[in-house]
Every structure is written in C-alpha cells, then in structure tokens.
C-alpha cells in the first residue's frame, strides 16, 4: 500500500486504534513511528505520585467536543500493576481494570507514554506533568492484594481482612520513577520535535533533568512554557539550569508566556523581552538588563509583565542609582518606580520586592499610579 494511503487510513482511525495497529507487526510499527501522522489527540496530563501514575489523554471529537481517557497505573501487592481505565466518549462513561502480574507500573506507563508521543505528529494543545510527593525523605505506602469478588463478599460477612502490606519508598525510588518518565519522554523525542502549544511542569524536584525535553519542543508551536520548581529546595541550593541550547539556537517567535521559576538561568533578557509575560531568575541582575527592560516596556503590549529574580540580594541603593529616585516606598512592602509613557494613558511601573528578591516590570493604567509619578 502506498505511504500516502497508509497515512490516510491511520488518520481516519482514532488514536487508540493507531496504538493497537502499531502492535500488529514490525512493518506497521516502523511505519507509524517514522511517518508523520496527524491524530485527534489534543491534551496529555500526567500525574506522578509515589504509588501510582495517572495519564489523562483528551481527544478532539470534531468541532469543539472532546472525549477523554484516564488511565491509572497503580502499584499493587507483590509487585503487580493494576491499570484502571475510564473513558468518556461524549455518550457516557465506561471503565475497566486490568491486572499485570510482576510488572512495574512505572515501566508500563513509560512504554505507553513513549508510544503515544512517538505515534503523534499533530500539535498538542497542552501537555502537563504534575509531580506529587514533595521533598520528603521516606514515604509509607499501603498496598492491597487484589481479591476475587467472592472473597470480597465474605470479607464483608466474616470481617475478613484483605492482605495488605506497607512498603517504604525512599526519596531515591521516587526520584528514579520521575527520571524514568522524563527519559521516556526524551526517547520519544529522538526522532522528531514535540509539537505543543502549552507545556507545563510543576513542581519539578531538584534532581529532575527536564532541559532536554524543553530543548526538543518545536519553538514555532510553543506559546506557553511554564516550569515551576520546588521553591524551598531550590532556593537553598540554587539549581542552575543548562540553558546553552536555548541561548544559542532556539527562537520563540510565538511565545506568549514564559516561566522558568525559581531555577537560575543565563538566558539573556534580550531574548525574552518580546514575550508578554515572563518570569525568570538569574544569579545577579545587572544595571544594563534593568535599563534595557525599562526601555522595552514602552513598546510592549498592554498586558506586559516581566518578572526578573535574583539569587543574590537586590540592593535598593543600587536600583536608585540605576532608575533614579523612588516614586513610592510603602511602610511594609515593595519599592516602586513609576514612569509616564508619553502620549498614552498608561504608566510603566517597576516594583522591587526585596524579601523575595525580584523586580517586576509592568504597564499599569494611569489612574492607579498617577500620584506616584516623578516628573
């Protein structure tokens, strides 16, 4: 069958059928992996916790209607994996459970994720990864043995207890789970860039390497990039991100929202100044960067908000030297500089929050800050 026809048939199939077709034989697998098939898959949400991973995929059903599939991969008694699948195709919700013996729930999830990302070439509306668990050292997880329905009835009648055991998951195991998920995503991007409009990861633990994924997102499609780290851990240790590839090669022309927080980066502000909403952190903030951003604000769109953080403490005297006298200093709160934008009803406002060590460049309506403007 000619490639074009094969592609056409696969594009007519729903995405789950494409994944089933992929399992039929090597030739089909190779074709699906190496060709560019547009699918109706629009959103992917991944929720990683110690005991389970939830994958929620949403499909466009033509027009504005969406249908979704939620798969929960759970760790079960004796290293089994239970897969709970629930679907809503618009007409109603159906669900089923499958038990995989001696199978790691992480591995099963990673295989599925890799297949999903590799087989799709259309632009995702959204991909989000949520890391649950927090910065704890040890987690206690109770796992329950799956029993038959008959046993389940007797359990209620005779107060029998299901077999349960408590397993201890140390931080290293949880980190390994997250790393495996990241590696599965990276592997799926080896052959093509990830086309996604909005990419969101939160709260990213300290040891998780995600820059390879960010570097492999198609820059022309990306409109929103939001990666939030664990605040307390990162502030203490000051995690530096290797952003050399972004600095040298990547141009985000359509980006509307950029947030890499609170990681420390070295992406030049000039590269980000065209983006309407930015939140970024550096080792230190230079006078050149402050003056550059002050000028950029004038020509920026109405909803402009550039938040620039610093690892080292921001000195207000240094800012007064660079920006001139303060417009307003609240009794408790931020230091403010206001500058009128000639010929408009807007005022550019630079706010310095010394306790959190950040500077915010915004444009505000004239009536709110008129009295603060220094002429």
């Amino acid at each position, binding site marked *: 069958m000619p490639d074009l026809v094969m592609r*056409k048939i696969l594009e*007519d199939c729903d995405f789950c059928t494409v994944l089933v*077709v992929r399992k039929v034989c090597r030739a089909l697998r190779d074709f699906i992996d190496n060709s560019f098939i547009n699918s109706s898959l629009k959103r992917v949400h991944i929720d990683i916790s110690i005991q389970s991973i939830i994958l929620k995929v949403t499909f466009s059903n033509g027009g504005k209607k969406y249908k979704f599939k939620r798969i929960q991969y759970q760790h079960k008694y004796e290293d089994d994996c239970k897969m709970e699948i629930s679907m809503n195709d618009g007409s109603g919700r159906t669900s089923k459970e499958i038990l995989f013996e001696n199978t790691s729930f992480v591995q099963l999830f990673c295989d599925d994720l890799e297949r999903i990302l590799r087989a799709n070439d259309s632009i995702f509306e959204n991909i989000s990864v949520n890391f649950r668990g927090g910065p704890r050292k040890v987690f206690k997880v109770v796992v329950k043995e799956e029993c038959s329905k008959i046993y389940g009835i007797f359990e209620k009648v005779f107060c029998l207890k299901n077999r349960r055991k408590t397993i201890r998951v140390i931080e290293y195991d949880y980190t390994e789970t997250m790393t495996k998920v990241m590696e599965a995503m990276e592997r799926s991007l080896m052959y093509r860039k990830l086309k996604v409009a909005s990419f969101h990861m939160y709260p990213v633990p300290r040891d998780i390497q995600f820059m390879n994924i960010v570097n492999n997102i198609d820059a022309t499609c990306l409109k929103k990039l939001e990666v939030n780290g664990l605040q307390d851990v990162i502030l203490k240790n000051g995690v530096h991100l290797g952003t050399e590839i972004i600095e040298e090669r990547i141009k985000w022309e359509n980006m509307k929202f950029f947030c890499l927080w609170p990681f420390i980066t070295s992406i030049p502000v000039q590269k980000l100044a065209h983006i309407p909403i930015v939140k970024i952190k550096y080792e230190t903030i230079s006078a050149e960067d402050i003056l550059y951003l002050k000028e950029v604000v004038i020509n920026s769109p109405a909803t402009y908000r550039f938040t620039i953080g610093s690892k080292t403490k921001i000195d207000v005297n240094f800012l007064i030297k660079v920006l001139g006298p303060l417009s307003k200093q609240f009794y408790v709160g931020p230091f403010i500089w206001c500058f009128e934008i000639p010929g408009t009803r807007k005022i550019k406002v630079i706010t310095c929050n010394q306790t959190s060590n950040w500077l915010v460049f915004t444009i505000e309506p004239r009536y709110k800050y008129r009295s603060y403007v220094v002429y």
Partner: protein
Amino acid sequence: MSVENAPVVDVDEAAIPVEKKMYYRFESNDKKEFRVSELAIQQSETLNRLVEAMGYTSEDVENKPAIAIENIDGKTLKLVFQWCEHHKGEAIPVDDGSVPKIVEIPEFDAKLMDIDNGLLFKLIWAADYLNIVQLLNVSCKKVANMAQGKTPAQLRRVYLLPSDEEDEAAKRAAQEAQDPRAREVEEEFEERKRQGGNSFF
C-alpha cells in the same frame, strides 16, 4: 396580452444544437473494455488530464483503440467506473488538513465496497493511482472502520499480516535459504547445546 392569446410558434427540434455526450473507452490489463462518460471521468484527476491531453473528438473515441490502463484489472476498474458514474458532477473535496476528518460513507458507496478485502485493497490502490479523491476518502474510512475495536491478533487475521515472530522466522528462513553455511553453523550450535556445552567455542 395574456398568455392564452400569445402566438404559437412551431419549433423545429432538430434545429436546436444538442450537445452530444461523449463516452470514452478504457481497457483494463485483462482486456476488458468500459465506456465511461466525460462527466464521470472528471472525478479522476489522472484520467481527466489524460483525455484532455489526448484531445479526442467523438469520432476518435469510436475509431481509435480503447485507452489502456495497464495497472488495474477489469473487476477493480468496473467498481471504479461504477463509482465515478454514480458521483459524476459532484464537487471534488479539498483536503484542509483537519484531524479527525469527518467522512461519511453514503449508502451506494457502502454497498459498492461490500467486497472481499483483496478487492477492497485493489480498489484503494486504483483510487490512489487514478487520483479519485472522494473514492480514496471513503475507501480509507472503510478500512479504518474495519480496524476499530479489534485486537492486534484480530487485525492480523483480517489483514492477513504476520506477527513479529512469524516475520522473524520468515526472514531467518529467507536468510538461511540464501546462505547454506549459516544453516550448518546453526545446526552445529544446536547439536553442541544438546550435548551440554554452554559456549559455541
């Protein structure tokens, strides 16, 4: 003047120029001949360009030999032309790249494609070769619908495809057939394994 009082004029019907429908003649690779209307041919971009380039008059169509379509057999070509005649004059759809594509299979097309898999794949191949966009759309949709809700094993049965193991075995067999020495080495290795040796060397 009322309509009733209007003068009646006799019209000589023979004097009105009636555009004669032109039927082209095509021949399949198994020498079966088909007569297809000019309007029906417009559904196929390939054939439409071909007849335009040939510039046949109605006399040429009758006197010259039928246009040969070497790659398609009579059974398939009959289905193709049946489809073209039924859908003649309809607009040719343009692919806007949207996914999922909303393709509805009309009743006539569903009946036409109620055939065995081999013939259906030949029909798809012919639709692609002759560039009949809508026939390709509906036939691909039919194959996609056939795959819906089936397991990999069922799909292998439907489309007569080998599993990975069968595929590998076939490859190995082909390789061995090419290289008899490889088979000897394999047999020797198996023999040594049976005798209890762990390593070939």
